[in-house]
């Protein structure tokens, strides 16, 4: 068994080497490449036009992805990194590992203006508290209402989860110096804090909490894939925080031209039309055919909050200690 596993490893290595087509290596997060993510369709579509071999390498989630690239440094095999968000891009850019994307200006369908020399967005979504309409009659309309209510929530830890970090910055962006106070008020609503999104969402579906931190697009999955219209997301009056997922090319890439072609491909319909029903996020550029039926039912917050990438790194340490202090009591 041991032998055959080793053999499998070597065989995989040799077949990869035997192919003569140029190989574009894209590092991304795990759920992107899974059978249920956008990866397989994106790979087929891009390979059909590039005459190359598109190879996805998966590394945990967005933060793990960046850790890996930083760990590998200049010797990284990655040509493109896809799956960072605005909380990570400042660190990524500061590493000097990323080249400017150099793409022509694109008309993005984002609630905010996008200006970033290194990174291009491919999808986005609003963080939101998701609930079951049949169980929660009066969904809260802001954090203070939520804190004042008896409703229970399950959230993610900002130290180990992307949505957790999003929530941290959400409260900070909305309340500034009052953030600690809001967290203290929320403390008795929080059932628990999970390491990742999956645990939290699973616990919510099991009925452990009334609301869960997720995305405004989450109800679309239940509606489209399961025909279940009971799930809804709450829009908050102070605004909902944005997550913008981006990609960038590595300065040390030996497939610079292919990498450019991939980034250009990323904002075309062939890529963008895959996003809504695999990543369950909004595409960065709405495809010509529009969004899938069902997305029109989603709540759209009136205000989009986003801490600029450059400020996020500085803000999050303060925000984290406020969060820890408030919830450790």
């Amino acid at each position, binding site marked *: 068994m*041991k032998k055959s596993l080793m053999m499998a*490893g070597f065989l995989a290595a040799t077949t990869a080497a035997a192919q003569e087509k140029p190989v574009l290596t894209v590092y991304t997060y795990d759920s992107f490449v*899974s*059978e249920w993510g956008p990866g397989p369709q994106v790979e087929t579509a891009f390979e059909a036009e590039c005459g190359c071999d598109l190879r996805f390498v998966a590394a945990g989630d967005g*933060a793990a992805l960046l850790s890996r690239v*930083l760990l590998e440094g200049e010797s990284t095999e990655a040509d493109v990194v896809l799956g960072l968000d605005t909380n990570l891009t400042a660190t990524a850019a500061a590493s000097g590992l990323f080249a400017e994307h150099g793409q022509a200006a694109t008309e993005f369908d984002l609630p905010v203006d996008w200006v970033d020399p290194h990174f291009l967005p491919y999808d986005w979504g609003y963080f939101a508290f998701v609930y079951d309409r049949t169980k929660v009659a009066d969904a809260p309309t802001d954090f203070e209402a939520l804190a004042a209510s008896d409703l229970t929530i399950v959230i993610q830890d900002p130290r180990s989860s992307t949505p957790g*970090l999003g929530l941290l910055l959400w409260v900070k962006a909305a309340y500034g110096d009052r953030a600690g106070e809001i967290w203290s008020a929320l403390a008795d609503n929080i059932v628990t804090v999970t390491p990742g999104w999956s645990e939290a969402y699973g*616990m919510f579906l099991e009925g*452990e909490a009334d609301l869960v931190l997720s995305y405004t697009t989450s109800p679309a999955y239940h509606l489209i894939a399961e025909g279940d219209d009971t799930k809804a997301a709450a829009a908050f009056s102070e605004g909902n925080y944005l997550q913008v997922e981006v990609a960038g090319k590595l300065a040390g890439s030996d497939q610079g031209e292919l990498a450019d072609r991939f980034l250009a491909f990323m904002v075309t319909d062939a890529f963008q039309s895959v996003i809504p029903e695999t990543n369950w996020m909004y595409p960065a550029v709405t495809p010509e055919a529009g969004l899938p039926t069902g997305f029109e039912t989603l709540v759209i917050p009136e205000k989009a909050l986003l801490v600029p990438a450059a400020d996020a790194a500085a803000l999050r340490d303060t925000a984290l200690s406020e969060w820890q202090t408030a*919830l450790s009591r």
Partner: protein
Amino acid sequence: MADRAQPLSLPLRVGAGAAAALVLALTLGTLGAVLLRAGGASALGAADWAALRFTLTQAFVSAALSVLLAIPVARALARRRFPGRGILITLLGAPFILPVIVAVMGILTIFGRSGLVNDGLAALGFGRISIYGFHGVVLAHVFFNLPLAVRLLLQGWLAIPAERFRLSAALGFRPGDIARHLERPMLRALLPGIFVTIFLICLTSFAVALTLGGGPKATTIELAIYQAFRFDFDLGRAATLAAMQLLLCAIAAGTAMRFSLPSGFGAGLDRPVARWDAGAATLILQDAAVLTLGAAFLLAPLAAIALAGLPQLAGLPAPVWHAALRSLGVALGSTAFALALALPLALAVAQRRRADLLESLGMLPLATSSLILGTGLFLLLRPIASPGDLALPVTALVNATMALPFILRALIPAARDAHEGYGRLADSLGLAGVARLRLLTLPRLRRPLGFAAGLTAALSMGDLGVIALFADGERATLPLQLYRLMGAYRMADAAGAAVLLLALSLGLFWIFDRGGRADADA
């Protein structure tokens, strides 16, 4: 009886040396690689010390409770024969080998806010209880580790030769006397090691502690390592915390060795154990109650997992089945690796007169942060080969190393008994090398070997291990696929995958464990 300390044979020295070197490379070596990359250690902050305090407290309480509760359960299983006992023993092992996320979901179905227990309490007019908090962490850790403690203790009970029970019966020993003369020395020999093993498992806990701990108060060192690694991108602090975790392991293991005394039962003639001491009605009732409660506590969450997932099993998408096959391969590879590592180590340890460094070395993987191990291994292997190509063999090897402490717990006492009981006879007959392995070691170690192989296979099956850094997306294992299903909102499919995982893990465990017990010598 004076006994010459025989020098270890050359193959044994080479085997044990290689195993020890590999363990060192994977634990201290990977840590060193990370430290080197970080350019040195970093200072720890107040939050880190708070994490240390919480980690130690919860690990101590969890381990103490697991061990204390395991004693009556193991004793009841040791002295009772009833239909379904074998299946019960196998099933009781299940929580230990479940992926954390699956087990937590199972626990919540029973003990959660809208779980069975709370619904029952509410129906009876009592208030609901919350599982979240320190007690929740402990409850979950006991759920995970009680089965391990029971199994290891049960091995201890079964290792008391039938002759000793016969002698006790002849001397008219009552249960209290048996406890004093037979059970207490056995427990004295085994408990420190088992306690430390569980203590260390709980020490590196992260997902359980956080999910059920209710918030950042329940920050463990492992979570602090995560934070340093991926929130602060501070490799140095991550490595410093990991080093602290290893140091704790060394202290704990050293302390346990000091308290552990050999039981000194000597060898018997492998007669089937008959128990003449357990016939009293009160004892039968007591054991029945203990077994019922223990089984209910451990099996109810499993039943919840099975009920949720069984209907989904048939409709699972093909990639899940492929992943299952891949995981089976990894599990079997891990098992082969693990036994090849553990056997020479156990035999070498058994031939020494006192527990020593080698035995403590076997405990190191327990206290190794899987994040640091994965990262260090990644740094070490990357110059040699593409990590993606090595994903499966590396996973098998790491899982094998991670299972080593449990295997050694099971093998060393048996190896010691075999050595003490029959080492001189074998020496006097010139029984050496492969022949000794085949005719003395393997037959005498058959039960613990079967148990160890089953445990490794099952653990490896359910462990996400270090694959995250090595995975290339196309070679996902079943646990990874399960997480992916959850990440893609497919909770129902995930429940089905969980049942598949549970069934495969238990199946592997059962087959190996059974193999170790079949044809037990009369």
